[in-house]
């Protein structure tokens, strides 16, 4: 470990690392498809390797010392690998079951799982068809085992067919600021829902007054000042439907009119 290394080794490594870092930063703005992350991380690993191998001079270490140097990195790899084995296979668990969405006509949870923070109304799930099965609150994609917080969708989802209507809705003092919402048939409804109460509220639409057959069940949020965007497809059949907060179904309800 004591030998004096020529300066040019250090300077070469320095130039390579600086150039690669700049290239790496530039690459972040160039779309390479799925390779972006891989290239970025490969460059990082390569730079780190250069530092360890040439600058610190591990290449001149005796074999046992090389093992000591490597061991932390190897262990980190094991930890990440096995933990990922859990996360990446969770969604497989239900492949043999029929589905986890509720059959039509059956009530969903009357009390949605509280405390879920998905502010994303799961646009990766195909837009709701009028006959589509309702979703369990907080269960994007209806997968068991995947945390509800998975935002499978982006707000920039492909535009749905038909018209889009935007509705502002807010809740305070355990009541909605609207008791009637009118939308065209089959339109895509985007509800910006603000909750000003320090308790949980959500927004759901049902076919029947008893709140048994859901059209859409939204994620509950807790305020004050919390906001969430819901997005769903209105029924294609005109009629008067029910909207309500599932947590306060008696106090907070109104008619959802489809024309």
């Amino acid at each position, binding site marked *: *470990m*004591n030998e*004096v*290394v020529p*300066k040019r080794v*250090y*300077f070469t490594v*320095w130039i390579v*690392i*600086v150039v690669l*870092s*700049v290239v*790496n*930063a530039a*690459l*972040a*703005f160039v*779309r*390479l*498809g*799925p390779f*972006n*992350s891989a290239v*970025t*991380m490969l*460059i*990082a690993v390569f*730079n*780190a390797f250069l*530092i*360890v191998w040439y*600058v*610190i001079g591990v290449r001149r270490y005796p074999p046992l*010392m090389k093992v*000591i*140097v490597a*061991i*932390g*990195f190897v*262990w*980190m790899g094991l*930890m*990440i690998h096995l*933990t*990922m084995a859990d*996360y*990446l296979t969770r969604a497989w668990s239900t492949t043999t079951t029929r589905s986890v969405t509720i059959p039509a006509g059956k009530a969903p949870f009357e009390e949605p799982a509280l405390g879920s*923070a998905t*502010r*994303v109304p799961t646009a990766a799930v195909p837009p709701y068809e009028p006959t589509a099965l309702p979703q369990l609150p907080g269960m994007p994609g209806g997968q068991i085992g995947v*945390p509800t*917080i*998975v*935002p499978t*969708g*982006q*707000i920039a989802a492909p535009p749905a067919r038909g018209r889009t209507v935007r509705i502002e809705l807010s809740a305070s003092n355990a009541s909605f600021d609207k008791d009637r919402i009118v939308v065209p048939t089959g339109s895509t409804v985007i509800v910006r829902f603000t909750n000003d109460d320090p308790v949980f509220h959500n927004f759901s639409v049902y076919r029947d007054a008893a709140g048994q057959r859901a059209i859409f069940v939204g994620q509950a949020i807790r305020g004050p000042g919390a*906001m*969430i*965007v819901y997005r769903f497809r209105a029924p294609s059949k005109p009629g008067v439907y029910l909207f309500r907060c599932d947590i306060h179904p008696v106090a907070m309800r109104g008619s959802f009119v489809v024309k």
Partner: protein
Amino acid sequence: MPEDALSTPILRGEGGRVDEQFETVEQQQTTAVTGLWVFLGTEVMFFGGLFLAFLVYRLVYPQAFIEGTEHQNVLIGTINTIVITTSSLAMRLAVRAAQLGQRWRLRGFLVIAINLGVLFLVLKGVEYYQHYEESLIPGHAFKFPEPFAAQAQMYWILYFVATGLHGLHLLVGIGVLSVMFFFAMLDKFGPEYYTPVEVSANYWHFVDIVWTFLFPVLYLLRW
């Protein structure tokens, strides 16, 4: 000290620079270098836990993390990468100077390394201030376009914890390097005794390596 002369180690070479538990100066030197590497193994796992957390949430919230990344100042990040790499180079040249007994070069390179470390922290501070201006500090004041606010906050927490811990390591490194500089001014180091400089250099390189990973992970994963 026991009066039993035989149980007192004989001080060999270098005017008694070998500690009582060692036999030779080589043993003492390799022990110090090994000790640091073993310690760095611990550090790797420490940051490893953080990387794991980041990776998991990156996987769970891809879109929010990308949007979070887009608020990063890649220019400052890149400059900082160059700064810390250069600092690393200066520190290694300082070790080389110590090996060759070039006293003034040793001092000079130490000063460069320390100042570049400080520059890194200053630039990081500028970034933090920008985040503050943009209300990106997690907590009640956190503001982020919906619908990804809650998830992007996760990105920002991990960002601040990771860069904060890295900054803390850098701060410790600056302290260690300053002590080295102090000893270098006292001419403590020479071709036969430079282990402390080498050990601090290795630590300094490790801080650089952590940044080598933090930079792409926090700034560049945009797709």
